[in-house]
């Protein structure tokens, strides 16, 4: 464990990817840390870099990607892991994806899928591995595990399959789970159940969680802290409860005001002009400035630093002077 007690520490991560034949920046100076047993939300729109951050941590970036900066897990650099230490890392850091069907072999049974890592990497005997798989299915609320192990992915609904994915992610007893929009493709009632299961198991086992979503309220419901990303940068990070009540960055406030409310509709939504951009499309200065109603000339001149403020961090030069206005904006909706 590193000196400050963080299980995962990302520091100054820059990532470039080949986009239409050119290397383009998708992550810009991303720094975050996750403590043992802590749940951190990563919220953003398309192109914000939230999935790429998770992929960089999982060492699952597309081929041709180049990264600089540091990702340390349990005190050691993730990029330097090879062979058995990389295998250990993959056992300790599990990933759950948005679309389970894209990450499971359709012609192999659920049982083969769930027990493969245990049998090949850990040398667990077949019967033992299957017994563990059945227990893991029980943990996510799937009672008839024996029967499920014999089934194939197409025989299971999306919600059931996502629970299988969670069960198998937890089989290797990871300490950190990276969940990339795990419920976005699910019905809202199924989402509530899958989130409840993930949250419960995480608390029971003291797992750390990086939860990626576009939904501020969903992140707030299950994460201790929430980071908001825009154009490849983290623009704000706070305790989730505070973020909801007192957003410090204009983008966070605008995002929460743009979403229609289930309690009492407004005549017109407070839409944000323009569209979200990727890091490589962002202009000089603050990437959000062209869409920000608080932007001034100085916002366009220099890229703001991520500054420590009371209770969190914010990447906005005007954060202090506009703090009162942001709170008002979210209250009126």
């Amino acid at each position: 464990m590193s000196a400050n007690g963080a299980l995962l520490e990302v520091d100054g991560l820059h990532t470039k990817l080949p986009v239409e034949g050119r290397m383009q920046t998708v992550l810009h100076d991303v720094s975050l840390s996750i403590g043992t047993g802590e749940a951190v939300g990563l919220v953003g729109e398309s192109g914000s870099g939230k999935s790429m951050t998770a992929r960089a941590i999982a060492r699952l970036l597309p081929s041709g990607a180049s990264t600089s900066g540091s990702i340390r897990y349990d005190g050691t650099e993730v990029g330097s892991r090879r062979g058995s230490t990389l295998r250990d890392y993959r056992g300790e850091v599990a990933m759950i994806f948005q679309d389970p069907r894209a990450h499971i072999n359709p012609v192999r049974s659920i049982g083969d899928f769930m027990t493969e890592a245990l049998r090949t990497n850990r040398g667990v005997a077949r019967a033992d591995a299957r017994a563990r798989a059945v227990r893991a299915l029980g943990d996510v609320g799937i009672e008839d595990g024996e029967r499920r192990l014999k089934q194939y992915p197409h025989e299971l609904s999306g919600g059931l399959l996502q629970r299988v994915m969670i069960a198998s992610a937890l089989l290797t007893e990871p300490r950190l789970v990276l969940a990339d929009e795990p419920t976005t493709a699910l019905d809202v009632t199924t989402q509530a159940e899958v989130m409840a299961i993930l949250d419960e198991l995480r608390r029971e086992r003291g797992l750390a969680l990086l939860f990626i979503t576009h939904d501020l309220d969903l992140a707030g419901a299950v994460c201790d802290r929430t980071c908001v990303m825009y154009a490849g940068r983290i623009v704000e990070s706070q305790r989730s409860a505070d973020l909801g009540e007192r957003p410090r960055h204009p983008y966070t406030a605008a995002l929460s005001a743009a979403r229609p409310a289930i309690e009492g509709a407004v005549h017109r939504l407070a839409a944000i002009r323009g569209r979200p951009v990727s890091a490589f499309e962002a202009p000089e200065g603050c990437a959000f400035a062209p869409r920000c109603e608080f932007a001034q000339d100085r916002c366009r001149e220099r890229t703001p630093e991520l500054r420590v403020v009371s209770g969190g961090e914010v990447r906005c030069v005007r954060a202090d002077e506009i703090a009162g206005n942001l709170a008002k904006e979210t209250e009126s909706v």
Partner: protein
Amino acid sequence: MSEPLLEATGLRKDYGSVLAVDDVDLAVEAGGSLAIVGESGSGKTTIARMLVGLTRPTAGTIRACGRDRSTPSRSAAERRRRGSEVQIVFQDPYSSLDPRHSAQKALDEVLRLHGSGSDSRARKARIAELGELVGLDDRMLRALPRDLSGGQRQRIAIARALAADPRLIILDESVAALDVSIQAQVLNLLADIREQTQISYILISHDLAVVRQITEEAIVMHRGKVVERGRTEAILDSPQDPYTRMLRASVPRPGWKPTRRASLASVPDLGETP
């Protein structure tokens, strides 16, 4: 009382032994906005397809603008007329637009069929008008779909539906795939268009907050049946049916915590618990 703009009665669709839509009645007044709310498998998209004529009902009647459309149209002219009454906008703007056609060309094609016909100057003027209505500038109108963002593409899909000058547009999860900041723009746009043109909407959606934003009436579907109907606000503020209550309780909002109890499988039991 005048006849509704669109009315379906006893609508039913079987797929073999599966009953996808079971005895559904619905009506939309001229200028009104109705939500069909439900989750996957509720039958909401099958209803949309039947209303627009892409799927033939097993039983029931559909009337729009005073004419029956329960059976397939018998002529091209009849098909065109139905197209000028009811249009549909799908969820995915990436797959519902022809990748080789600019917005301009897509709109021109619709205008040739409906409305302006062979007068190319009139068509051009109408394209500019439609572009303005949905917030697309000249450059965007000339661009191919691949050069536009998801929100811009969905604006084209909406403009294309409007080009036929329909009385009603069916919005089949039309804002579900959009980023939150873009979704707000498109929802405001849809409200503006209705204000300006007196058009009616049927919104097919699983998203209760979106439903609240742009509809006044709603029906809630579960397993092919309507379980609740009424004013959208009333349904969301005091849902009566156990399924609607569960749906309402599952929506993340400030202070919300997910619970295991909210599972689809447990719905039938919910009615018995206090």
